[in-house]
């Protein structure tokens, strides 16, 4: 008489990759479904299973899903680009912000000049609304809820702030310009 379990949980991708028994208390189950084996493979190759397990154990349950998603994204980026990884995307976005800021400054200068040249009787259109990144900070400000070292989200402003990546890569203050 074979014992039949009422509920059968297939092993997670991590346990299948590591070839071990996937217990009920497996930290990876739920975050690495067996349908996505490549996801854990990348994470294991870059960070290692033990490091990921330690990182997930330090977080609250409601934070683990976001952490796994970010780790999977970073691992895949590093596999594709071993030199820059996801930092290449950050550098690209930083250059875009810088370019847009310069365009915005030039457009504002033109606007001020035209507004000063036009007559006072001309009806002034309402200025563009300045949206504050309050929602962005609130969305990603949950890092300070769990144990361990957690930091409050800094108050980012509309103006471009230099990322520490540039300082790390080039102590002289230059931009990210390295290519493979």
């Amino acid at each position, binding site marked *: 008489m074979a014992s039949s379990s009422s509920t059968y949980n297939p092993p997670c991708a991590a346990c299948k990759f590591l070839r071990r028994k996937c217990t009920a208390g497996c930290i990876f189950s739920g975050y690495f479904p067996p349908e996505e084996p490549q996801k854990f493979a990348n994470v294991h190759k870059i960070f290692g299973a033990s490091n990921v397990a330690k*990182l997930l154990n330090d977080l609250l349950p409601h934070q683990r899903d976001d952490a796994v*998603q970010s780790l999977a994204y970073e691992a895949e980026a590093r596999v594709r680009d071993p030199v820059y990884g*996801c*930092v290449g995307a950050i550098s690209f*976005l930083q250059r875009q912000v810088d370019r847009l800021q310069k365009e915005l400054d030039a457009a504002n200068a033109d*606007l001020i000049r035209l507004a000063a040249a036009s007559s006072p009787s001309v009806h002034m259109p309402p200025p563009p609304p300045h*949206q504050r990144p309050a929602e962005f900070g609130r969305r990603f400000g949950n890092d300070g809820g769990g144990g361990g070292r957690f930091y409050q989200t800094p108050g980012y402003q509309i103006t471009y702030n230099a990322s520490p*990546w540039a300082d790390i890569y080039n102590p002289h203050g230059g931009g990210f310009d390295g290519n493979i």
Partner: protein
Amino acid sequence: MTIKSGTGQACAACKYQRRRCTPECLLAPFFPADQPKMFQNVHRLFGVKNIQNLLKELRPDQKVTAMKSIKFHALQRDKYPVHGCLFEIRHLNYQIQMAEDELQAVLQQLAYYRQQQQQQQQQQQQQQQQQQQIAATEDYMSELQLGVAPPRNAPFSLEDNNVVPQYNCVAPQASYSNSGNVDYSINYLDFKENNNVVNSFCEQQQHQQEQQQQTYSNSNDNNTSSMVVHPAHLIVPQALCVQQEIGQDYNEMHSFFDCVDDTQSYIGSKEACDSSLDSSPSKDTRQLVHEEMAENELKSAAAFFSLTSVN
């Protein structure tokens, strides 16, 4: 107890691992001894073995760049344990979106101001053109009135919207002076169409004259002034109406004078005249009757003082 390398102090990696830092240490160039926190972050996220595996696959010139990116990556993960580098990426995406929205708004405002400027320039040009046209028209009008400029051969143009009011006042006179018989014919046709209206107007004037018995001369003056006030296109038909009335009442006047006795006084003749005026003639016939009566009075007075005696 860590064994120092030949060059000096052990690297942060070897110090953390508490092992001998050899000159062949791969991590020594990237993790100086005075920055232990940096290696701790990297070690916590990647691990020494994984770092070494990553560096083995790269060329020497790529190792420096790779290690810098790894250090930055570990620093971000240390700052944001949940999202890591993804926090910075999403923040930059948000900044880009905000900057693009603001840039679009500023460009819309710029387009608005440029459109305003164009409209102002167009209005100024239109005003200048209108002023030039008005000045040219005034010059022509002044020359026309002085008789310097020849009148226009074509009838007054209805297409000249700016000067239509002026030409409406001058048109009847111009039609008489030039070969613009078209205008006169138009006025004539208008008169013929409005003949019934004009005749009724003349009848109204005659009725008013019947009511003003005491102030006979004043009523004439009033009727005269009232006739002048009417619009210009009725002046010609009114004149014709007067002519017709005079012709129509001429026979009546003859019959009236037949019954007038020269020997009667002015007052008596006046009463007779008023009583017989069922369809009173116009002002001109009234003047004629008055003159007749005055003449009869003079004749009677002359007969009374005549040297020829009645006896």
